[in-house]
């Protein structure tokens, strides 16, 4: 039994890329099956006018319909008549994907440096407000129209990066120079971010025309522009340009980690700080630098949330930063994986909306369903992570003491 388990684990650790993709799909299927049973059985405890009568009970929910809405609803029901590529549901999916890419990259970069940044949420909140305030301020000095867009959008994104980066540098410096654990400080700074931004809002930046806690709207030309012809309608609050920028950032971060001296130092610090110090890395500066980079990525997420989704900063910021943690873990903290993980989250998010409008299944159950899917898809990679340590340990017992015997 134990041996079978070990063999299985070893097989998993040494799986090829193709096998890993296959495993992920198998996990997805298994999750769908289990979730389907869950939804179906839950239907017996609900009351409804019409349902499937079976063995004396009435099953209210149809799992097939639920999955149809979850996956195809997220794309805007492509199999139904009158489908257009540029539909609202797909825009929601891709908007969520874009924002989660920024948040996921933020968490992943910190993870690779050996830091657990729970503060992406706070960095996103601060970055978002910085963007809104900066753009509102700069817009009064700059021309409108196309020139305004070209100038204001980069300024806004940069402002978000600076604001988030600064807010990430704080826990970095606290860790480096005062030894404060970054998990604790980033959690606390999340609360501080909410408090400080809402105070600032009521002090100076509140939109006088509204009762909602929000800033004034940035001029329309300062929002992320939509591409002509292939782009989505401005009403859908999603721009392909933003998605393109997010994907470019994925490639950029992957390149930074793999090819540059800074990335090498960051990764070395993450896996073995003593070796990094030996190799001439100043650990304190690296801690601050990687937290700043992580915070800047979170801040960019805030900037796009402001400039793409709402055109203004609202006090009620969604939990993108916390979802970013899940995205990063699902992606194994690999920048390239973050893209796919963010898309899965985008689909689940948008699909859930679709289920809520089209069926009677309660939102709580939909939450359980998407949670199950995330759990299942993440588990194989998780076991690989565990298994790699275990299998290495097994291998190294003979190898390390043999003096490089033939077995390695």
């Amino acid at each position, binding site marked *: 039994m134990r041996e079978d388990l070990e063999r299985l684990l070893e097989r998993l650790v040494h799986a090829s890329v193709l096998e890993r993709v296959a495993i992920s799909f198998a996990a997805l299927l298994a999750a769908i099956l289990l979730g389907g049973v869950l939804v179906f059985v839950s239907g017996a405890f609900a009351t409804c006018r019409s349902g499937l009568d079976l063995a004396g009970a009435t099953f209210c929910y149809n799992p097939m319909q639920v999955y149809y809405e979850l996956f195809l609803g997220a794309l805007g029901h492509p199999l139904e008549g009158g489908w257009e590529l540029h539909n609202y549901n797909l825009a929601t999916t891709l908007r969520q994907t874009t924002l989660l890419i920024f948040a996921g990259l933020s968490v992943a970069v910190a993870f690779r440096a050996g830091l657990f940044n729970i503060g992406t949420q706070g960095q996103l909140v601060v970055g978002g407000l910085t963007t809104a305030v900066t753009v509102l301020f700069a817009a009064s000095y700059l021309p409108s129209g196309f020139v305004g867009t070209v100038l204001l959008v980069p300024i806004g994104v940069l402002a978000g990066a600076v604001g988030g980066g600064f807010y990430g540098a704080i826990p970095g410096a606290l860790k480096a120079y005062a030894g404060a654990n970054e998990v604790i400080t980033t959690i606390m700074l999340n609360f501080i971010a909410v408090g400080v931004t809402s105070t600032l809002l009521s002090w100076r930046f509140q939109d006088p025309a509204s009762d909602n806690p929000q800033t004034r709207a940035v001029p329309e030309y300062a929002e992320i522009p939509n591409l002509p012809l292939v782009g989505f309608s401005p009403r859908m609050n999603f721009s392909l340009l933003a998605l393109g920028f997010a994907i470019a950032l994925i490639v950029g971060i992957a390149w930074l980690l793999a090819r540059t001296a800074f990335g090498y130092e960051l990764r070395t610090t993450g896996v073995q700080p*003593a070796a990094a110090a030996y190799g001439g890395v100043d650990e304190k500066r690296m801690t601050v630098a990687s937290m700043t980079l992580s915070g800047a990525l979170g801040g960019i997420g805030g900037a796009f949330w402001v400039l793409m989704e709402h055109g203004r900063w609202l006090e009620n910021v969604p939990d993108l930063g916390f979802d970013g943690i899940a995205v990063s873990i699902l992606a194994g903290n690999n920048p390239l994986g973050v893209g796919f993980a963010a898309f899965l989250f985008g689909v689940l998010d948008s699909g859930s909306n679709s289920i809520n409008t089209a069926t009677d299944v309660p939102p709580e159950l939909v939450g359980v369903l998407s949670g199950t899917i995330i759990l299942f898809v993440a588990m194989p990679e998780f076991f690989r992570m565990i298994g790699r340590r275990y299998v290495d340990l097994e291998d190294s017992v003979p190898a390390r003491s*043999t003096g490089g015997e033939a077995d390695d």
Partner: protein
Amino acid sequence: MTGSETATNDARADEELAVHLDGITKRFPGVVANDDVDLRVERGSVHALLGENGAGKTTLMNVLYGLYEPTEGRVLVDGTERSFDRPRDAIDAGVGMIHQHFMLVETMTVAENIALGNEPRKWGGLAVDRGRIDREVRDLCDRYGFDVDLSATVAELSVGARQRVEILKALYRGADVLIFDEPTAVLTPQEVEDLYGVFEELTERGKTIVFITHKLGEAMHAADGVTVLRDGRAVASVEPAETTREELAELMVGREVLLEADSDPVETGDPVLSAANVTVEDDRGVEAVSGIDLEVRAGEVFGIAGVDGNGQSELIEAITGLRTPDGGTVRFDGEDVTDWSRRRRIEGGMAHVPEDRHEQGLVMPFDLVENAVLGSQRSARFARSGRIDWADVRDHAEDVIGTYDVRPPDADAHAESLSGGNQQKFVVGRELERDPELAVATHPTRGVDIGSTEFIHERLLDLRREGKAVLVVSSNLDEVQALSDRLAVIYEGEFVAVTDPDDVTEEELGLLMAGERPDERTQPARAGSADAGGER
């Protein structure tokens, strides 16, 4: 058994042999690790299995211990043929193994560790019978003269004491044959002597010992019989009394070996490294180095000998920039570098073979290509405006692997998959090929086989010949004595002597390392700090 002049008397009945491996062959995909190996060990004797890294010693012992199944051949314990599927079977047959890396739970007590997995039960198997454990373990300690505090947690114990716990664990499980994998690799010279004492106690009471080693001196000194392995074959089985070190070395390596590194005098130049009145505190804030002065000149090898834990690590860290000294100055190439960062010192031409290759010298989960650039990731040689040229780095990694005979010769292998000796070779190679002005090497050949040791020594002497400065720290007296032009002995954070290594005998050095000053033949009156090793 090829080339065995003093072959064991075949007429001797097999029952007298505690262990008899008969024609063991072990193949791994693509390689033969053991090729028709015979091993005969008499009951109540100490047998050394001698060979270089990768000769197949540990594979053979893993066959005996049931970790590997032999491809061919028979395993006989006490004259009975056995087939072990797993270590448990070997333990049941009375074979115990003491691994190089101890398998102890640090947070548990000595007694708990010894009984772990074999706890006697009471109350119908519901509870562990601690009283019985204590009684039985105490009996064992008394019988073999072990002095171990049973209620101490393993974390509190010195390395030597941990090893004794491992031995007790094997004895507690009823082992009659004890296999030791490189038992002296982690011990201080004094602890090594103690271990030989333990060997004697054990064999007097009828236990049989097989130990793996690549050190000639140990095999000559401690063993009743020696089997030499080379490239997976048993090339000879001899008794130490009937052979010489040179002969054994040749059997091991397959060619003649110079045991003494030859260091002809070289003109020394200006001081490259000088430290004045350097004081360093360790992690706990205890003064580990107290006002040391030292000077290493161009064209000179300066050696520091001492028992581990006497401040040499902290001194080296202060010199290489890994730790800030609490007082004094360090000058390098005429400049005051006391406040220089580690990176600046590397760029200034300081190479460093660190004490701990697992923690510092190598990034374990990275492959050798990535490890080849550690320390040079920002140097003009490999990086162009912050971008690392990985193709260049790969060439460099392959050079180091080839030149220093790192096995397996695969740049894509992860550092953690290499054996200790090969990891060390790679680190030494990377550092010495930096073309440094000053090479600081701590235990440069720890865990390395003698063929490669010879090569590393030659390379260090080459640097010296090129007019570079070399600082060597080692607890291996042969090594520092052979390499150094000047030799300092460190004890409790101070140099107790700086001499010409040819003017002192090994015994005198041993006494100096133990804290006896040349001018006084009594223990220094200084109150011993709570330092690890201070009590030795």
